[in-house]
């Protein structure tokens, strides 16, 4: 079995490689960014991909979208520091088979991989709780992958030109998307936008 890990944090990647290799006696490949991840995904066709959302540049959600477009049967487990409803819903909508917070215990990660191998979905109970809480409170805004990528970079404190470079779009598009995002979240200013995102648990990572 082949497992691909796409995460920009070297320590975490190393630990995950060791544990997955031991637990599943699998060949574990690792990538530190989206481009490398996509290259290995195409080259190795891994049975399971463990994907971080907060990748430098393009971001994990876009990579997930590309992977699923490449291979509609790709089994991707998202392992992210974000445990907000928006990211989880977006990831699951894009066809992720699992969604785990990085605060989850290792056993839960292994469980998610086992379920994915068996063709089942698995969502971190802590994330499920956040998602259902969000749903009972008010309908989650319908945020697109682009919205979430933009939000991630904004929360990272990046300037419009940096965001434009990361996402490969023009600054004008960044401004347009930002104002759309603001209206989706009912925020009148950038600060309010970030506060809303933070309140929803969408922390920069």
């Amino acid at each position, binding site marked *: 079995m082949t497992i691909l890990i796409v*995460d920009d*944090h070297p*320590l*975490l990647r*190393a*630990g*995950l490689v*060791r*544990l997955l290799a*031991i*637990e599943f006696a699998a060949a574990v490949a690792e990538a530190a960014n989206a481009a490398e991840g996509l290259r290995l995904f195409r080259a190795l066709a891994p049975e399971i991909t463990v994907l971080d959302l*907060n990748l430098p540049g393009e971001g994990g959600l876009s990579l997930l979208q590309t992977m699923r477009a490449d291979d509609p049967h790709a089994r991707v487990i998202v392992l992210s*520091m974000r445990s907000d409803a928006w990211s989880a819903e977006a990831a699951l909508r894009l066809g992720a088979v699992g969604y785990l917070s*990085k*605060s989850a*215990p*290792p*056993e839960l*990660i*292994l469980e998610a991989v086992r379920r994915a191998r068996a063709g089942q979905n698995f969502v971190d109970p802590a994330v499920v709780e956040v998602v259902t809480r969000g749903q009972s409170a008010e309908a989650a805004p319908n945020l697109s992958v682009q919205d979430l990528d933009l939000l991630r970079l904004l929360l*990272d*404190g990046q*300037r419009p*030109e*940096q965001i434009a470079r990361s996402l490969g779009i023009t600054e004008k598009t960044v401004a347009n998307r930002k104002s759309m995002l603001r209206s989706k979240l009912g925020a009148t200013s950038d600060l309010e936008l970030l506060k809303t995102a933070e309140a929803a648990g969408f*922390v*920069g*990572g």
Partner: protein
Amino acid sequence: MPLALRLIFLVAGALLFSLLAGGVLIFVGAAEWVQAEVDNSSQVAHELVDQRLAEAAEEGESPERLTELLASLETDYRLHAVYETEGQAPPETRAAPAPRSRLSLLLGVHPTVQAIPVAVAGLPPGRIVLTIDPEPEVARVWRAVELSLAAITLISTATLILVAIGLTRSLRPLRQLTEALSRVGTGDYSPRIDTAGPREIALLGRQFNLMADQLRHMRTRTRALDAEMAAVRERERREIARDLHDELGPCLLAANLDVAAVDRLNRGGDRRAVADCAAGLATALARMQDLVRRMIDRLHLDPADTVDLPASIGDLVTFWQERCPEIEWRTDLHAAGEDMPDVAALALLRVAQEALANAVRHSGAAHIAVAFAAEEAGFVLTVMDDGAGMAPDTRDGVGIAGMRERIVTLGGRLEVRSGPGRGTTIVASLPRFEHRLAGPEPLEVTA
């Protein structure tokens, strides 16, 4: 009592006093004058009669001429002359006529009666009785007194009215000042005083205006600083959250993963893999310890601690270097020397923190240079980047005001050289002597 009223009373008192004094003087003068007039009349009449009698002694007298004399005496309105023959009671025994008016009484003048014996041929022996009545004179004097008093009263009233108007006008700025001060007391620094009018009061108004300007300026500055402080706090909080989230979180998971792996290896007994996991754990823990230490360092820059400025700036650069390896860093840090006060070192360190954070976050610079030197005149910190630069209107939002406040308070200067597309250079310089407090100095900008 209001000042104006008090002054008006004062003037009124003075006028009243002069009115009384004038009255007394007029009274004394009038009494003398009436007496003099009366005496004069009496003397003239006496002389006239004496002369007539002397003539009569030579020429003889007829009743017609006597009547004529008496009539001519009567032309003086103060005189009353009659001829009395012997046998009538002598004038001494008759009571002098009582004065007819109270004023005459007051002036101490009363009619006088004089009898001049007549013993000439052609007339029965008798006497001419002259009664001098001061009453008409008193009436005239009284008329004059009335006129004088009326004039003085008129002048006094006019004076009072003019003084009242003048005072009210002069003191109007004071009332304005009082109102303005009470508004300043409630925190409204907008009122300004009209500086026209008397010099002293105009000066007061100018000083008030200066004070209100200063207060408003200070409040504007305080508000800007408050807002900036809040923004800085918010950013710090965000950064700490991000550090915890981006760095500590994954490290903890990495350590946890290795613990889980060790647990599994313990069942299998693969020694080499255990060593790998242990090394992984050790790395993760060391990284976490380092992270925690650095976050604590950033949170607590205790002013009581001695600050080794070049070393602290070096640490700061290392911190950013690790986070932004794509930026090329250059440092030129010289020793601060023993005599650098901690308060100065701390202020420059804060400026370095803020300037570096701005350069990294906002400028998109490829090169950042930091220099510190202890020169003879003072300490100079320079942070230079080749990034986007700042338009003049965006400068206040990125902590420049806060930096300037720190430096200027210690008597130093903060110079910002920047312009869109031209990078940013911030030069903070502090004089060598300790803690000199200086007033606000305008930010020097070379755009």
